[in-house]
């Protein structure tokens, strides 16, 4: 019995110091572990490590002190007597559908449609408007570093006059990218750095101008301004996307501001253009700003608004039957369908559907066409298997009706509908003619028209003359039936 006690005592005499030593050692190790910085080699990624100015400063383009009156040069071109017009972005009815009663060829000769004339342009994506035999294009003169409204003869492409003002701009995926709005009396332009000008249509004489950045605090969009101006009667409708003027109306003759709708939520200018629309029997202006879409009455009252989180919006809103509006954008944004409701308390925008670019019609750059109840467009690069395909969607069911297939892709290309044919231009200047179809892709003809790249400027069609451009050249081709 005594031996056992002795043994236990001896065991305790060994175990206790060992436990104490182990405990002390553990405490030391834990202390060291906690005391040591285990991340000495990690570097923090914080804003400002690129050496650039803060984003708030980058988004302010500063005071450019641009003399918008500029100078007028005249040349030996004369207006042609060719009939027809394409007076603004997406044509007279804002739908990109030519409704002139002209038969276009169903096939092209082996060497393609005849190129009637061609002119060199500054790098960009600006496209022409046409009225009374004159082609108006808002170009950027890279030699003189100036915005330049150029007037050409539709017949032979000879320049008639050029109104330009000096403007510093560096190429940033091109420079020019808007389409003038033209009436019998006046032309309205918006330049890459948010300068609005009004000149006389026949003479090119300067009438008035607005610097949206300087006067209203507009934030110049990434890659310059893409908004095309709207003339509605005697008014110019602009979307400065500025704190005090999300949308505004100016007198066409004088430039005097008639009304402004403030941007109460801080929404900003996008590349989208203002769409005039009649919903519930009321005429209104619809604009998709960076931040959301709004409807504004002709008197300048905000009727409805709906937020939409798209960082870059190039296409414009598209009206769909049933008081619905479809808007789409690239860069992962996808599409949004809203229904505008009206009751005794006023208007309200209700989200009907919102989908990513792989799940529904989405377009990165060009505005879809609605025709005979269906939506047509070119899918963006993030459109999954349908990327860059020409597609037809049912706006009611959201289902894909048909697509051009993986062997027919069109980049970011512009397209137009005329004489029951789609004309689709791909990035490298290849023009494809399709038969209008609600059931499938039917290619009629295809030919490479332009040699350059980035052929993204919208197509204009006047009579049987089609105007196309790539990044540095505009051509006029004959697409009519040969006699």
């Amino acid at each position, binding site marked *: 019995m005594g031996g056992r006690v002795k043994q236990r005592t001896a065991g305790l005499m060994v175990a206790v110091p060992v436990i104490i030593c182990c405990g002390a050692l553990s405490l030391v190790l834990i202390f060291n572990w906690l005391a040591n910085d285990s991340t000495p080699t990690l570097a923090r990624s914080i804003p400002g490590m690129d*050496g650039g100015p803060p984003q708030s400063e980058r988004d302010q383009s500063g005071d450019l002190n641009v003399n918008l009156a500029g100078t007028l040069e005249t040349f030996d071109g004369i207006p042609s007597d060719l009939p027809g017009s394409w007076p603004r972005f997406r044509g007279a009815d804002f739908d990109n559908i030519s409704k002139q009663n002209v038969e276009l060829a169903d096939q092209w000769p082996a060497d393609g449609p005849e190129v009637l004339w061609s002119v060199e342009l500054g790098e960009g994506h600006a496209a022409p408007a046409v009225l009374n035999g004159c082609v108006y294009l808002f170009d950027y003169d890279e030699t003189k570093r100036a915005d330049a409204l150029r007037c050409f003869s539709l017949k032979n492409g000879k320049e008639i006059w050029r109104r330009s003002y000096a403007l510093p701009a560096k190429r940033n995926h091109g420079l020019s990218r808007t389409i003038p709005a033209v009436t019998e009396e006046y032309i309205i332009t918006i330049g890459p750095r948010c300068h609005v000008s009004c000149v006389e249509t026949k003479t090119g004489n300067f009438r008035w101008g607005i610097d949206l950045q300087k006067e209203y605090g507009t934030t110049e969009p990434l890659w310059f301004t893409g908004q095309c101006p709207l003339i509605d009667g005697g008014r110019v409708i602009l979307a400065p996307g500025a704190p005090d003027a999300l949308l505004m109306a100016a007198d066409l003759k004088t430039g005097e501001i008639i009304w402004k709708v403030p941007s109460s939520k801080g929404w900003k200018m996008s590349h989208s253009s203002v769409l005039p629309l009649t919903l519930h029997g009321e005429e209104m202006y619809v604009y998709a700003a960076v931040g959301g879409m709004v409807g504004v009455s002709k008197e300048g009252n905000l009727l409805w608004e709906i937020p939409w989180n798209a960082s870059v919006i190039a296409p414009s809103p598209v009206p769909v039957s049933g008081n619905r509006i479809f808007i789409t954008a690239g860069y992962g944004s996808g599409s949004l369908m809203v229904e505008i409701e009206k009751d005794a308390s006023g208007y309200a925008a209700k989200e009907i559907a919102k989908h990513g670019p792989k799940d529904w019609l989405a377009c990165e750059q060009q505005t879809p066409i609605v025709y005979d109840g269906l939506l047509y467009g070119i899918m963006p690069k993030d459109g999954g298997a349908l990327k860059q395909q020409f597609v037809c969607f049912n706006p009611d069911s959201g289902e894909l009706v048909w697509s051009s297939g993986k062997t027919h892709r069109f980049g970011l290309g512009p397209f137009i509908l005329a004489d029951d044919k789609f004309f689709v231009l791909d990035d490298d200047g290849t023009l494809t003619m399709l038969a209008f179809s609600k059931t499938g892709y039917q290619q009629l003809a295809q030919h490479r028209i332009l040699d350059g790249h980035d052929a993204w400027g919208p197509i204009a069609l006047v009579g049987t003359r089609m105007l196309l451009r790539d990044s540095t050249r505009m051509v006029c081709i004959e697409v009519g039936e040969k006699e």
Partner: protein
Amino acid sequence: MSEMGNRGRRNFVRGAAAALIGGTVLAAARSRSPKLVWQIDPEKCTRCGRCATHCVLAPSAVKCFHSYSICGYCDLCGGYLRPDAKGRNTGAENQLCPTAAITRTYIEAPYYQYKIDEDLCIGCGICVEGCDVFGNGSMYLQVKHDLCVNCNQCAISNACPSDAFKRVPASDGYLLKSDQEKRISS
């Protein structure tokens, strides 16, 4: 007995001679055929992410290449910034690359230069996807031959869903995107 022994020696000598001649021919043939290395065809690559996970090396021998002649030097860079980035800056929360392997440097308004830090790049292709979908496609994946151990059967090529891996001559071991880079590399 001695006749059988002679026959054995003769067979041995014949076998040795055949092996020597065969080996010499094989060696000569091998020395004449070009050395082949694995490479990724950028046109076929679908940025699936398997280059980062299936290489026998860790990190992978596949790295992001950047073509400066194709890059737009944009402030809003789809290869650098997350699609839902809160700001266009170098904050970690805005960066697309999981290892911060892309450095962004201000040049002048509105241009930024983007460089790939090869030591940090794991070849996941996330930036390549962003650059292709939202940008000009200047970023793309290539096997770095100074890192690659050139396995007989590349483990990534087995896993590649788009058949983008192929053998190319070591003397022309990169499938570069732009003519400008091709001229520089040659």
